[in-house]
Structures are given as C-alpha cells and as structure tokens.
C-alpha cells in the first residue's frame, strides 16, 4: 500500500512538472515590458477615458506593426459608464483573430479604453484596452463579468459583479 502511495505521488509530481514545462505559449504579456499596471479596479477605471458595455460587430481586420499582427474589432456600445464615446468603437488588440477567439459577437463585454495613438495627442480613431491590453476586458456573464485575458501578474480580480465594476467607475 505504501508503495502504491509512493508511485501515485511520483506520478502526480511528474504530471505537475510536465504541465509546468509544456504550458502553452503565453500571450504578449509574457514577453512584453509593461510601462506600469493598475493596482486595482478603481485605478483601472480612473486610468481609462471610456468605460462601456459593448458587443463585437462585423468581421475583425488585421493591421501589422513590424510583422506583428494586431486585430481591430468594431464594437457596438450598449451602455456608457464613463466618457461619451461614439456608438461604435474600433478596438485594437494584440494578436490575430485566431489569437482572439474569446471575443465573440454572441457576447457582451465590459471594456476599459483609451484612444490609441502612434503620435502623442494624435488619435488614430482606434481604442486600446487599458491595462496593457490585458486588464480592461471582461465578458459579461449574467450579473458578473469575467476578465478574459489571463496575465498572472494582474492584480485585477478575474470575476467581479457588474454592480461592483460599475461602482468602481464612480459617478
């Protein structure tokens, strides 16, 4: 019996080590250097010009920067929590559409956004997800919302209630 337990232990440890070593390629946050990161949902809200609930519409397009793909997806705004954005927003995201399959026209998202720029003060007409493209996108799931990008370094709680997100925006 002791031997069985030992074998089970060795198998479990080996399985753990395998999952550690073969975890799938992480998103860009694994290799980017973030300028900084919001410490909590209040800071994420305060650092965003616009907070909305919105639904993807139409096909995404791809723009490349130094051969790296960025997906641009139109969203139709259904609720405005902060700022006074137009009815549709072109949101820029890291990666190709294949990398962003968790963005679906069947779902609604809470989006924390800032104007995307290449030149300071000159808007491109696109929007960037606050928190380095990672922290500020939640999928609406009933009364709560689930952050869809999984940066282990993010201090923003993965699941939050819609009222608590709304309250953190203030106003």
């Amino acid at each position, binding site marked *: 019996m002791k031997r069985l337990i030992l074998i089970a232990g060795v198998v479990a440890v080996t399985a753990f080590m395998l999952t550690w070593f073969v975890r799938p390629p992480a998103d860009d946050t694994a290799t*980017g250097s*973030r*300028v*900084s990161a919001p410490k909590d949902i209040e800071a994420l809200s305060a650092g965003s010009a616009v907070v909305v609930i919105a639904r993807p519409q139409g096909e995404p397009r791809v723009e490349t920067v130094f*051969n*790296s793909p960025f997906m641009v997806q139109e969203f139709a705004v259904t609720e405005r929590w902060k700022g006074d954005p137009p009815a549709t927003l072109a949101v820029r995201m890291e990666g190709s559409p294949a990398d962003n399959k968790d963005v679906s026209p069947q779902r609604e998202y809470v989006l924390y956004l800032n104007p995307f720029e290449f030149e300071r003060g000159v808007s491109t007409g696109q929007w960037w997800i606050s928190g380095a493209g990672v922290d500020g996108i939640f999928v609406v799931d009933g009364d709560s919302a689930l952050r869809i990008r999984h940066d282990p370094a993010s201090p923003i709680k993965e699941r939050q209630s819609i009222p608590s997100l709304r309250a953190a925006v203030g106003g």
Partner: protein
Amino acid sequence: MSGRCKVPVAVVAGTIVGVGGSQVAFAYELFDGCHYVTPTLKWKPALKSQTYLDEAQATAWAWTSTSTPISLTQASSGANVTLASGNWGSTEHDGYMRMNDGGPWYCGASGHWDQGTIAWLNTYYTDGYSSTKKKSVWVHEVGHSLGLAHSGEGAACSVIPIMAPETSDRYGRCSKSTPQTDDVNGINFLY
C-alpha cells in the same frame, strides 16, 4: 492565478522547490526551458535612430559582463539577437520580445529557439526615457531572448530581478537596469 506574486513554486533541476513570500524571485521560470543552443551569441542593432546605439551596446555588455557563460558580440550578419527600436504606439508596453518572423515566442522541437529573436524598445514611450531607463527595458527584453520569463513582481528592491514585468516597478521603484542575482541564477541554470 491573480495577485502580485506568481505561483510560489519553481522547478529547478528536477526538484520542486516551494518558496513563500515576496523575498524570492523566480527567473527560473522558463518558456518550456527554451533558450539558445549556445551562450556565445551575436547581436546586431536595428534602430529607429542612432541615438539608441549606446544603450544597445550597454545592454549587450550588461549581459556579457555577468557571472554567466553569456557572451553577446556585435556583428553585422548572423545575429542571434536583434536589438531593435520602433514605434508600436500606445500599447502600454515599452518593450517586446519577438521572434525574427514577427510572431510571439515559440520553441523549436529541440527545446531551443529555432530562429533569432528581436528585443524591441517601443519608442512611443522610450523616446521619453533616460539612457538608463531604456537600458532597463532592453536588458529585460534580452533576458526573454536568453530564455527567462517574468518573475519577482513587487519583490523587495534588494532581490527584485530585471525580469520583473513592469518598468514602473523594476526601474521606477527599484532603479534596476542590469541583471540581478536571480536573473544570473536563471541563466546559469539554462546554460
């Protein structure tokens, strides 16, 4: 998996080492253990402007001068690592590591990079940085090229590695612009 500290477990040379608290960082965390075949490497600059050349050379030297086998020699061809600068826009990232084909990292079948890597500075931000702050980002990105993952976010400044993911933390709070003990240990584990 949320919170300031990463999972406090590191796999080091086949031993699982559980460590608690924020005093110890984990540059041992690997991209599937992926790294270059050899620590003797060539680098080349691909810069938006020559004003970044001093920082690129300082970055290569920062790694070469560590107590590790890493040697980065400037070369005009056959570079393993490219130190590049260019405008990626307001992505809230001041640096990126990419493969030569432009994609995010992936490992060759042999457990080594099967193409060169590019350590990028995003000039949207770094044009406003001091020389040392630029170096902090570049040394961090080259750390990724050498095979190190993020570690040590929020750690005490006495132990924070260059692989801490945020510039505001690694440089703004702790003024680090060169490889630290944990980074060196990680490299010596890999090479």
